[in-house]
């Protein structure tokens, strides 16, 4: 174990991928972690279930849709941790986003998956830059790459946070911002949904988060890697063909 503990903030502290990543990280080195979650007590219990109980030092209530709470939540975490070395942004929900969504559904989804996390990341970036830098992993999705009929609001929100995170990395030389684009990951969020090709478990996504946290410069990652060439092709397909391949009929 390293001499100095790694101080980590998880935005979306109930996320299975993030908590597994923290658990994995804490098996390799000394980690102190604060969870920012809509339901802080539930995030704590989930952390214990997923083996992150030795790393988690606190949980703070934070709802991505609450415009006034981002700075306060980040400040609280920085105070508890005595600094901030890394952040994992794993907030988000699939919602019931489809063509039939109501205005409030769409607003809620866009805020929870894009506007809220972007605001929190801005706050994190300021806190890190003031202390000489840090490492940020943002969980995007391949859904960000091309909208599908069945879940385009989710895809649109992910596209927004994806672009925001890449910009954040470009704009702050002291930050290393990693944009992770997983395919279908088997988690509590996706339980009951039909699995896509190249589906992975949350442990594999967690390993990717840990690896990305150690990267020396900002970049985008596909999990699994094969999705990169695959989506290069898929994004180039004409619309009807894409819809057929994407299962949107």
């Amino acid at each position, binding site marked *: 174990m390293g001499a100095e503990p790694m101080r980590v903030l998880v935005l979306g502290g109930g996320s299975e991928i993030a908590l597994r990543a923290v658990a994995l990280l804490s098996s390799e080195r000394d980690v102190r972690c604060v969870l920012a979650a809509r339901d802080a007590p539930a995030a*704590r*219990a989930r952390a214990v279930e997923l083996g992150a*109980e030795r790393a988690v030092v606190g949980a703070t209530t934070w709802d991505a849709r609450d415009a006034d709470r981002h700075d306060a939540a980040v400040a609280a975490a920085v105070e508890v941790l005595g600094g901030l070395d890394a952040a994992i942004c794993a907030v988000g929900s699939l919602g019931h986003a489809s063509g039939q969504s109501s205005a409030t559904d769409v607003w809620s989804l866009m805020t929870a998956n894009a506007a809220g996390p972007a605001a929190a990341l801005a706050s994190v970036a300021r806190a890190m830059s003031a202390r000489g830098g840090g490492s940020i992993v943002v969980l995007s999705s391949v859904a960000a790459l091309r909208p599908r009929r069945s879940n385009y609001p989710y895809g649109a929100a992910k596209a927004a946070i994806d672009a925001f995170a890449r910009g954040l990395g470009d704009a702050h030389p002291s930050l290393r911002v990693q944009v992770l684009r997983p395919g279908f990951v088997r988690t509590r969020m996706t339980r009951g949904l039909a699995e896509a090709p190249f589906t992975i478990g949350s442990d594999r996504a967690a390993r990717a988060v840990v690896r990305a946290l150690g990267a020396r410069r900002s970049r985008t990652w596909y999990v699994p890697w094969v999705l990169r060439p695959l989506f290069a092709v898929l994004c180039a397909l004409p619309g009807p063909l894409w819809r057929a391949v994407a299962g949107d009929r």
Partner: protein
Amino acid sequence: MNGVRVSGWGRTSWAEVTEVPVVAGAPTAWPDAGVPRGLGRSYGDAAQVDGGSVLVPSAPVPGPEWRGAGTVRVHAGTSIDELLRWSVPQGWFVPVSPGTRFVTVGGAIAADVHGKNHHRDGSFCAHVRRMRVATPGEGTVVARPGDDVFRATAGGMGLTGVVLDADVRMLRIATSWMAVGTRRVDGIDDMLACLAEADGGHRYSVAWIDLLARGASLGRGVVSAGDHAMVADLDAKRRADPLAYAPRVRAGVPDAVPGFVLNRPVGRAFNEAWFRRAPRTRDGEVVGIAPFFHPLDALSDWNRLYGRRGFLQHQFVLPDGREGALRRVVQRLADGRAPAMLGVLKRFGPAGEGLLSFPQSGWTLAADLPDGPEARALLDSLDEIVVQAGGRTYLAKDARMRPRHLPSMYPRLAEWRRIADRLDPDRRLTSDLDRRLGLRGSPRGR
């Protein structure tokens, strides 16, 4: 078999009963009049029937066993104390813990008990995935959430059958310690605001309210909110064995405490000292499970403190938005001639599916009063306020309510009666509570 004299925990009314052990599975012969009885922690007369029988778990009770991740199958005669001693060192906590751990799982289901986490986790039966209930009319029934038998037995005060065992979903914990924050509040408005705020960020919350304070101090008290501590919350010594759990119970109270020990001046002095001792605000204090959840269990037989006349434990709930009625009740308790000592105030979350289950969204207040005519008159007047505001009193604690309030307090009573009559057509299951309030209703065809 010889008659035994039993009472509820409040020791206000006594019954001469025959104890009938329930041996492995359903009773072989049902008594003419009987009710299940566990550890006798219901305060009133729910677990006794004068001149009848009490169905008691036969020792030894089989131990708990895991049924898949996080779900435990536990015999109804097992106490929460035994369950915790088994589960905590393995990193699991009961989903709901009442103020004492000396209740059986069967009793916890029959009263659908709640704890400091009701605002987010609901009552005990919300975490029961399956139970087996022995009934006089339909034999042994497997009940699952949503079933008639489940909805009638959850909070059914033991009047639908004998719960044999239950599958309970447990809560994962990292340590056997609690991280607790405390706020001292000077009046009732602050208290309600503080409690509502604490609920958002913490699994457990409760307030202790000084029911003897008047005037500007009316409703003053101490709000505490807690969560299961993480390993990082512990000091190095505790970190070595974060799940260590060995709660101790101190020697009891003798059976002959004079009745005047807990009177108004003593109560006032005690409350004052206790209020002053609490810090105005303190966070991150680490305390054990027992002092956080079961403070009264530290002293066994504490109910004897009230002497021979016994005490009335009273608890009611008022719906959200009826804070005015709550203030009136607190005012009346403070003005009353019967001294209510410490009250416990808490916000409930939504109701569960038990047809006679007590908790519903809103504010709940519990208070102890030494039994006597003034106390009973006072509680009668509180019932009127509670009924008018759409609230209800808690049957597991009741020893004196008037039967006429029952249907308005428990609007699903008729549905419950239909199911209870199906499960026990000859009405063999009855209790002094049932007789006093007419829970089962007037007998059919008579």
